[in-house]
């Protein structure tokens, strides 16, 4: 039995705002095992991004417990949660979130400011990761000189710096053209084959083909889909 990396147990997340109280995640339990490539699909507003944020400790649950790498996030301080994100977790979002006035190389190295140890080895790793995502020739290009697909690949390289155990990807191919989407998914599939555990949310049902576990999120509730 593979080791569980992340676990949600009866987790709820309620947002309060102008529309009143909205349960984005309602009583969800989930176990992400090492080696999984999980894909969560669902409509916009179904709560799938919130679920990912809960797993990554980016927001606190209203109820239930979130366990990440064996640590109950509710019992960890802000610094403790940040340390887990810095060293064992990689995030990719729909927006690349690159600093436009830094080069691709420095954008990947950005994690060295937040917990990944800086140094020659890390620099070499950053170069290797950019090569791995097909951007070895664009190391010194500024982020705003890169295409949308290239920016997304830099973001993936950045998420992988420091060798995380788990990659959480929130709509990593959103707003990309079909060809670029295929490039990104092929890259993620390669990374998974190399041993990276991935949990991805997307509204694109076709991307389930890359997963070994598929889930559907609807009105804050999660259902694992049986393999076809």
């Amino acid at each position: 039995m593979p080791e569980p990396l992340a676990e949600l147990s009866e987790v709820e997340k309620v947002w309060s705002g102008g529309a009143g109280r909205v349960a984005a995640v309602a009583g969800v339990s989930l176990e992400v095992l090492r080696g999984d490539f999980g894909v969560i699909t669902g409509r916009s507003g179904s709560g799938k991004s919130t679920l990912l944020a809960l797993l990554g400790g980016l927001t606190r649950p209203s109820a239930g417990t979130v366990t990440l790498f064996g640590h109950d996030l509710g019992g960890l301080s802000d610094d403790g949660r940040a340390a887990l994100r810095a060293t064992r977790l990689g995030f990719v979002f729909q927006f690349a979130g690159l600093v436009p006035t830094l080069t691709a190389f420095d954008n990947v190295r950005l994690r060295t400011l937040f917990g990944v140890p800086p140094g020659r080895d890390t620099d070499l790793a950053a170069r290797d990761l950019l090569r791995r995502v097909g951007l070895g020739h664009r190391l010194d290009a500024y982020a705003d000189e890169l295409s949308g697909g290239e920016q997304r690949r830099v973001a993936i390289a950045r998420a992988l710096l420091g060798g995380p155990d788990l990659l959480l990807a929130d709509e990593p191919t959103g707003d990309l053209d079909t060809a670029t989407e295929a490039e990104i998914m092929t890259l993620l599939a390669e990374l998974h084959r190399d041993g990276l555990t991935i949990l991805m949310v997307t509204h694109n049902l076709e991307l389930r083909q890359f997963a070994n576990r598929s889930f559907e999120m609807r009105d804050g509730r999660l259902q694992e889909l049986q393999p076809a």
Partner: protein
Amino acid sequence: MRPLTPGSLLLSNLRRRRFRTAALVLLVAAVTGGVGVLSLLVRGIGRGVALGTARFGADLVVIPRGGRAAIEGALIVGQPTQITLPGGVLAAVRKLPGVQIASPQIFVQSLHDASCCPGEFFLIGYDPATDLTVKPWLEEHHRTFGDHDALVGDRVSLKDGAQLPFFGTPFTIAGRLAPTGVGLDTTVFIPLAGVRDMVLHSPERAEQALHIKPDEISAVMVRVAPGTAPTTVAEEVTANIDNVEVLLAPQEIAAAVRELGVTLKLLMAVAAGVWLLLFPVLGITFAMTTSERRRDLGLHRALGATSKVIFRLAVAEAGLITGLGGLLGLGSGLVVLLLFNGPLGRALQRPYVPAEAWSMVGFFVGLELAAVATGALAAWLPARAAAAADPYVCLRQGEA
């Protein structure tokens, strides 16, 4: 390979908003530079007044009636003047109660790039036995002067030790007074005996003969007895001696600078007020910047930044902006003050003794630190709010 540091990230953030950064830097530069320069001008005038009045020595000056404007010009900014007291005034002043010392001075003439000597200065004859300005200097320096030794003010361009013919009579530049910021700085003091000699021989030695009677004087410098109010002696003078008026010397000097001092202090207060206004202006600007960058901040949190790091980055960015502004403004101000101290002092037309260079630099370093602190404090609340925000909420709000 160049390491990536928090400084690199801060600078790159500033480059992302060049116009806003430049506007803030220039605003802070104008305020800090203005406060710095005006403060030092006000301090320089204060020093000028203090030094001038201390060196002046006299508590009051007896002059011919109607000579106030002329002697103020002479005392404050060294403007040449020629006034003559009625005969017998010196003796009459000395007899008055409360007068400790009464010393005569004769305002000979001003010389402006004369054939004898370069520069512009004002020749004053003094009585070595009783003088209140020169005598303390001689005593302090353990010196005695001959009848043809001259003591010059700090801004007189004649060389020390030089022998120069004033109206054909040779005088040696035997000493130089410390700067006072007042008219003393452009004055050449020569003993009354030397003046008489110069007057006597001027018809045959000089291009222009001097017409000064042997007992003629321009002013009587008076020091009052200890415990006596200068105003009481001034009343005695005007009550007992005709056709004279009295200037209370230190008060006159101070009064002459008061108007300018008030103006400068007002300007300084305005600049300081603007500095205070920097807090809300910078605070609002940094709050806007932080709000615009919520998604970046959320992303940094997702990459592993702690809330403390987010707080420090936001505060440091603000401190960097105001620090750069301070460097620009204070650096420019310092250069202006160091290069143009002389012309500035003369342009003020008031006693002005600038602070020493090291003191200016120290003062400006203090202001620079204050500028950095201003930015950091202004960003404190927005930074705290950014650090405390839920990272996921930041990410979602940034998408909106």
